[in-house]
């Protein structure tokens, strides 16, 4: 079979897989962002025990392999009565993992905002929380877009690991198709191209967003 024939034959299942991949990525990045925000704020503004907890959580997650985490959530929980579907286990593992990385990007962005901004917010009578919400985060979130784009791209590609626990995402579908048509090279090449196109589309979207919310006249590295 030529490459184009392989594309035609595998189009259906691979598009089904792509749908799951995107679903998995979007859910995980959003849950991860929520978790990352909590961890980052806890680490920067929290009291000592909270800071300590957030730091420990981030280090444990970043210091252990993603695959191990996926296995723990899928194979490790049923004995304790928590039985997750492959998709649920994957979303949970990716969210937790990505949350730890996103927390570090967010922390860096928050700490890069000059301390005078919070001082000015407090001096006009804002509470610390108002300062965080109205002054610090709007600036920090703008700064976090470039590293966050990287995290999104990593996550999108790492979701291919979910095939191991039986999630029917793009990689799993490609394996399934290839095991039938024996066109390993062409099938996986097609899968790789799909990942590439999706990555390019999303990174273009995020760089559009970055330009869109850019503060006029403001350079980050001044």
């Amino acid at each position: 079979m030529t490459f184009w024939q392989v594309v035609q034959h595998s189009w259906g299942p691979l598009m089904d897989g792509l749908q799951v991949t995107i679903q998995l990525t979007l859910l995980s990045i959003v849950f991860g962002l929520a978790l990352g925000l909590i961890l980052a704020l806890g680490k920067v503004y929290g009291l000592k025990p909270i800071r300590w907890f957030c730091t420990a959580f981030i280090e444990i997650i970043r210091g252990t392999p993603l695959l191990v985490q996926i296995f723990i959530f899928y194979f490790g929980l049923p004995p304790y009565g928590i039985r997750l579907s492959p998709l649920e286990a994957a979303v949970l593992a990716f969210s937790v993992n990505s949350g730890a990385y996103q927390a570090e990007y967010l922390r860096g962005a928050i700490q890069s905002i000059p301390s005078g901004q919070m001082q000015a917010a407090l001096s006009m009578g804002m509470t610390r929380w108002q300062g965080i919400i109205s002054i610090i985060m709007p600036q920090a979130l703008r700064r976090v877009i470039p590293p966050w784009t990287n995290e999104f791209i990593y996550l999108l590609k790492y979701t291919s690991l979910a095939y191991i626990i039986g999630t029917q995402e793009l990689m799993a579908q490609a394996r399934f198709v290839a095991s039938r048509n024996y066109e390993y090279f062409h099938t996986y090449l097609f899968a790789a191209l799909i990942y590439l196109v999706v990555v390019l589309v999303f990174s273009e979207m995020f760089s559009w967003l970055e330009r869109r919310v850019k503060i006029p006249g403001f350079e980050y590295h001044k």
Partner: protein
Amino acid sequence: MNKEKGSVLRIEDLHKSFGDNHVLRGVSLEIKRGETKILIGPSGTGKSTLLTCINMLTPPDSGKIWLLNDEITASRKVNLLRQKIGFVFQDFSLFNHLTALGNVSIGLTKVKGMDRKKAREKAMEELKQVGLGDKASSYPAQLSGGQKQRVAIARALAMDPQLILFDEPTSALDPELIGEVLTVMKKLANQGMTMLVVSHEMGFARSVADEVIFMEGGIIVEQGPPAQLFSNPRVERTGEFLSRLSSLFGEEDEK
């Protein structure tokens, strides 16, 4: 009513240390309504620390501070009292993600709970007051240093403060931009705003200050009306410092 008639700010025996560094060693001072006091002194002498203690951005170790009848140092709602004390920073500290108008109105909407439209109108008035009505939609990065500092002053004014603290408001500015900021500050002083200003602009001090306070080593060495302090200081050290200042900045400018 005020305990002492007309007193806006009263500080009693304020102390502050950072580790072994005893920065404030018992500072007491009083500012009455409508007065402008200028704080001078060598760097590292506690002037800025004194200002940030007044609005509790730096909590003092001991001593008392009253704003009108409220003891700031005993208050559990410091942020409510901070609304009444404007603060103008050396490096402007404008909110970078907001326009000039946004900078001035955000305190009104977030802190005072004013509705958006009213807040924008009031913010616009304050910007006009500092001569920047035409820059309302500019972002801080699009403004000159002098314009930024004037926006910062408008931001402080918008909260209708009882007192404005200025921490070296012109020392981060190019020389040709200093005048526009001082002009605004003079106007405020003449309108009866109560101000405490850390500044070495002697011409400004001479023309608007009710009193000049010379601080060194964490204490007030001498204070008095500018004419007396500049021409006839009682303490030798004050004279030394002043002569060093005028040799640096040249003769003070005319009124």
